[in-house]
């Protein structure tokens, strides 16, 4: 993949409003012309047709191109309304709600809700002030206690590592936009808000478990993203239903909360951590696969302790998942991409060619 595409992809994905991409108006210049010029230049870089050689790069380019067009349309309409480049709080999506405001060196964010209370951090929901409606929603994660700043910083380090090497798996990972420190010395991270449901919510919606074919596409995508992360030498180390998310409309999945990621185990989850965590062994990709298998059993409505799944789940699929949750780290599935390949074969064997089936929440 060329550096120009990497850089442009990152630039587009980091933007929260059209001005971030097309720049602020300069007196004496026709802003519409400038925007058009920059749009043409960037679309040359990210146009999918320019990346036909490699399907993976093409998919990334498609994602960036779609987003670029959204920003371009937004810029046009802002110019038409005469508000392009104005930086008022009345602009964009942040005009609603009260909440409190966080100001960083980069920009301001208005916090309007609490999304989650984690074990070390609180996650707030809000908007970039002046951000565009489709791109300005954020999740702001703040350490409850400065003693846990190292874990917040660890996630930042990991996400940066992923962001410097964008790939088609990027769309399954959180996008980090900004960082700050509160007056009480707590570290905070601004992430793009993910329009998705964590797996506890999914299971709430499906108390008896989700249909197996849905579990299969979710597992496929998760194996792909874990394969990518493991290839970067990163083990998540804390996969559980709260850290896996599904976006029903586009069949996307996300792996979130990389605070505990790295080469050694930092946290124990009684249900979802593999036995080697208790034994304080070296963390391995197989540990993530164990936790992932447990999450799948949960999502399918199974018994997470006994590794059993509802009768209706195809026996071959059950055995496939049970291979992930063997107690011995050496006896279970080891390699996410290898299992991805096996799963593709198995899906075809059980359900025929993969097809898009609507998943509703």
């Amino acid at each position, binding site marked *: 993949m060329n550096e120009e595409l990497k850089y442009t992809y990152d630039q587009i994905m980091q933007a929260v409003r059209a001005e971030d991409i097309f720049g602020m108006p300069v007196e004496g210049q026709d802003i519409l012309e400038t925007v058009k010029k920059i749009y043409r230049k960037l679309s040359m870089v990210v146009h999918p047709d320019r990346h036909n050689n490699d399907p993976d790069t093409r998919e990334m380019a498609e994602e960036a191109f779609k987003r670029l067009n959204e920003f371009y349309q937004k810029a046009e309409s802002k110019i038409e309304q005469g508000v392009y480049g104005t930086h008022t709080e009345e602009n964009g999506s942040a005009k609603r709600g009260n909440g409190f405001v966080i100001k960083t060196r980069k920009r301001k964010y208005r916090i309007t809700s609490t999304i989650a209370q984690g074990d070390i951090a609180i996650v707030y929901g809000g908007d970039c002030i002046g951000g565009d409606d489709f791109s300005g929603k954020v999740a702001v994660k703040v350490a409850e206690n400065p003693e846990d700043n190292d874990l917040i910083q660890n996630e930042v380090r990991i996400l940066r590592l992923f962001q410097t090497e964008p790939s088609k798996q990027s769309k399954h990972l959180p996008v980090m936009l900004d960082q700050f420190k509160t007056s009480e010395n707590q570290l905070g991270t601004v992430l793009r808000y993910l329009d998705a449901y964590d797996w506890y919510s999914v299971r709430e919606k499906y108390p008896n478990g989700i249909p197996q074919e849905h579990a299969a596409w979710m597992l496929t995508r998760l194996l792909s993203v874990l394969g990518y992360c493991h*290839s970067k030498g990163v083990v998540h180390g804390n996969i559980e239903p709260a850290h896996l998310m599904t976006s029903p409309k586009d069949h996307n999945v996300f792996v979130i909360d990389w605070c505990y990621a790295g080469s050694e185990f930092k946290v124990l989850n009684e249900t979802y951590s593999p036995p080697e965590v208790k034994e304080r062994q070296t963390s391995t990709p197989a540990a993530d696969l164990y936790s992932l298998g447990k999450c799948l059993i949960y999502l399918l409505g199974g018994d997470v302790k006994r590794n059993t799944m509802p009768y209706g789940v195809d026996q071959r699929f059950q*055995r496939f998942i049970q291979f992930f949750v063997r107690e*011995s780290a050496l006896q279970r599935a080891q390699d996410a991409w290898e299992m*991805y390949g096996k799963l593709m074969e198995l899906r075809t064997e059980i359900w025929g060619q993969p097809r898009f089936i609507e998943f509703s929440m």
Partner: protein
Amino acid sequence: MGGGSYSGDVAQRTRSTSESIVRARSQRASASERRECHPDLNPKGKNRECADSVEHPKTTPIVVAMDVTRSRGEDIAVIYGKLPMFIGQIIMKNYVPDPTISFAAVGDASSGDKAPIQVGQFESDNRLDEILSKIWLEMGGGGTGQESYELTAYYYALHSILACNRRGKKGYFFFIGDEGFYPIVAKDQIKVWIGDDVPRDLPAVDVFRKLQEKHHVFFIYPQKTWEERRADIDAEMQQRVEAAGGLYRGVFSNQ
């Protein structure tokens, strides 16, 4: 594992297993750096039984007997590292009911190996890892082109007790090696290593036949070693042919 064509979601064909798993494995391997057969794996005077249970009512015994002599080179470590996954994969694929594995290590009793036969109990869970960690990779052998496969065959033919045999089924026995067996099973070696008194040496052929009464027996000859050997043989032939004034290059046979 391996093989299969990956498409769609996968960006690269690189293995996703990071360094750390390799380190974890080599730590395991180094745990077996003792200089003798672990008492748990010493078969002398003992049987190995594969019994049915409530949890596993239809056990399928599977024996994996690895040649651990020097001629096996580096790939023994690769096989050794992947063996634990074997049981998980058999269950995943549902190849046989209730697979229960006994790992064994084969050395060379005729070249002074200190542990020419190491035999693990039949297990189907975490205990398999323990057994593997206890196997001593002696890396002996004497360059005779033979290892004591027949001694291991003798042991399993006479000292494995398999519930499946009573049900009219056989176990599966895999030798993994790259050399030949000795034509006789020496009675002295049987006495020393297994503890049986036999009146005379036994023809290896008879012993393997006996083993086949209990097991379906396979010999896995790793492809890589074979190719390497063929390359060696080809090189040697080329040298001989050319030294004799013959033509080697550009001569093809369709046979």
